């Protein structure tokens, strides 16, 4: 079955990309060597077509109050226009509907960016609650999104923006964004490197992509995106968390603002979970021998019980296998992972593995 296509689809095909289905979209998994694409982002600059992700504009005076109710993180933390917030959106039982980024643009306008595979259910969930609050909700499928990431991303991308946008983008602090006409430039990403996520009208996307490539920004596929985000200790919705688990069991307690008077959907369930203690936790794993961690492999944590790898890969930066696993709360130290019938030791480590090109775990 043919998937949905981004405005850059023809360029990916012409570049010889291997295409895969991702959340109903035909997207490049790699253009050649995935490891070289990964290294380009860690050492220089790479770009990703992330137009499958869905931008949602929420407008109206009640928007901030609506997001205070919908998001587990506290939208009240966004006091300066342009500031971004990472948050989960929860069901009443604490299960994760999606993880997203919320941008505060002005008191009448917030923009959310949600995952492709969950966009339809997110829209339905938000719309039901936006309508009574008098908040308008507009999916921005007219926008393409390109993530330019890496230590040289700023230097290579900035000169390609219109002069008025250049000045604004150059002044952005980490986790800030600025609209610029129909364009939108955010200093955010999913790789553990500095860079921008740039939204722009679809029609202009191929020319901008080509200009970035001419400036020495390497096209990168979903394969490199996955190894980069894993090294950076960032969760992937659908693999590391979903509606069956709470953010507290997904390594995302830091994104949940449980204290204070603010009531939000899922709060009661999480307060109860916190008071009785979570049964499981999401941890980073470093494989100590040969092999590659893959999702759904069983993790044996001695007397603490067993768990499961939620994401795993070969880390080009560490030249070892790394992953995340959901394990019993008491698990610590070294565990064993069942890899193709063989038990291989792995060490529980503090995330992230890599940030800004530097290895942060002991090998």
């Amino acid at each position, binding site marked *: 079955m043919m998937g949905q296509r981004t405005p850059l689809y023809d360029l990916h095909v012409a570049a010889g990309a*291997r295409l895969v289905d991702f959340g109903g979209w035909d997207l490049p*998994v*790699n253009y050649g*060597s*995935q*490891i070289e694409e990964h290294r380009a982002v860690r050492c220089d600059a790479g770009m990703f077509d992330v137009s499958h992700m869905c931008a949602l504009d929420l407008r109206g005076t009640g928007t901030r109050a609506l997001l205070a109710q919908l998001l587990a993180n506290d939208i009240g933390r966004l006091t300066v226009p342009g500031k971004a917030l990472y948050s989960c959106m929860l069901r009443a039982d604490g299960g994760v509907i999606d993880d997203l980024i919320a941008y505060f643009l002005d008191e009448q306008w917030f923009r959310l960016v949600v995952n492709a595979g969950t966009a339809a259910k997110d829209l339905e969930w938000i719309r039901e609650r936006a309508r009574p609050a008098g908040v308008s909700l507009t999916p921005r499928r007219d926008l393409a999104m390109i993530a330019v990431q890496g230590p040289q991303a700023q230097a290579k991308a900035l000169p390609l923006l219109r002069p008025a946008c250049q000045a604004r983008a150059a002044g952005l602090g980490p986790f800030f964004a600025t609209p610029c006409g129909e364009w939108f430039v955010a200093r955010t990403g999913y790789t553990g490197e500095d860079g921008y996520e740039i939204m722009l009208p679809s029609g202009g996307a191929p020319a901008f992509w080509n200009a970035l490539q001419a400036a020495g920004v390497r096209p990168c596929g979903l*394969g490199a995106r996955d*190894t980069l985000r894993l090294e950076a200790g960032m969760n992937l919705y659908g693999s590391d968390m979903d509606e069956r688990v709470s953010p507290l069991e997904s390594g995302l307690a830091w994104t949940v603002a449980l204290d204070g008077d603010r009531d939000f959907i899922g709060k009661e369930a999480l307060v109860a979970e916190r008071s009785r203690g979570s049964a499981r936790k999401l941890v980073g794993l470093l494989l100590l021998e*040969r*092999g*590659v961690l*893959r999702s759904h492999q069983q993790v044996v944590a001695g007397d603490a019980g067993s768990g499961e790898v939620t994401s795993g*890969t*070969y880390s080009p930066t560490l030249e070892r296998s790394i992953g995340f696993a959901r394990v019993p709360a008491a698990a610590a130290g070294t565990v064993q992972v069942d890899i*193709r019938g063989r038990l291989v030791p792995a060490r529980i480590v503090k995330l992230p593995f890599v940030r800004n090109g530097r290895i942060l775990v002991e090998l």
Partner: protein
Amino acid sequence: MSKVPAELRYTKSHEWLRALPDGSVEIGITDHAQAALGDLVFVEVPAAGRTLATGDACAVVESVKAASDVYSPLGGEVLAGNEALATQPELVNQDPYGKGWILRLKPSGNAASADLQDATAYAAEVAGD
């Protein structure tokens, strides 16, 4: 388009086989297979002296995406595994029909009678993928 050298023979599971002058054979995975797997990160080759039957899993190639078994197109005795792949698995990606060979085998039967495809048949098969 993936490369399919005319002088080799091929399995449906994407191994290639090269007849060597001394009667032994060299085995590897095809260009099509390495491209589908993506960058290899580990290759496990069989030890010399191991006896294989036709169709035995004789090596493991693990890429950034997945681990796959390599199946021996013939029965026989392993003469050598390519030890260079332990430290340079990328040789399989870079040179699948040359430096990226996986094992050499002394066939127990007649290598010519094995159920293998020629280059034309294999090229037609992968073109349909």
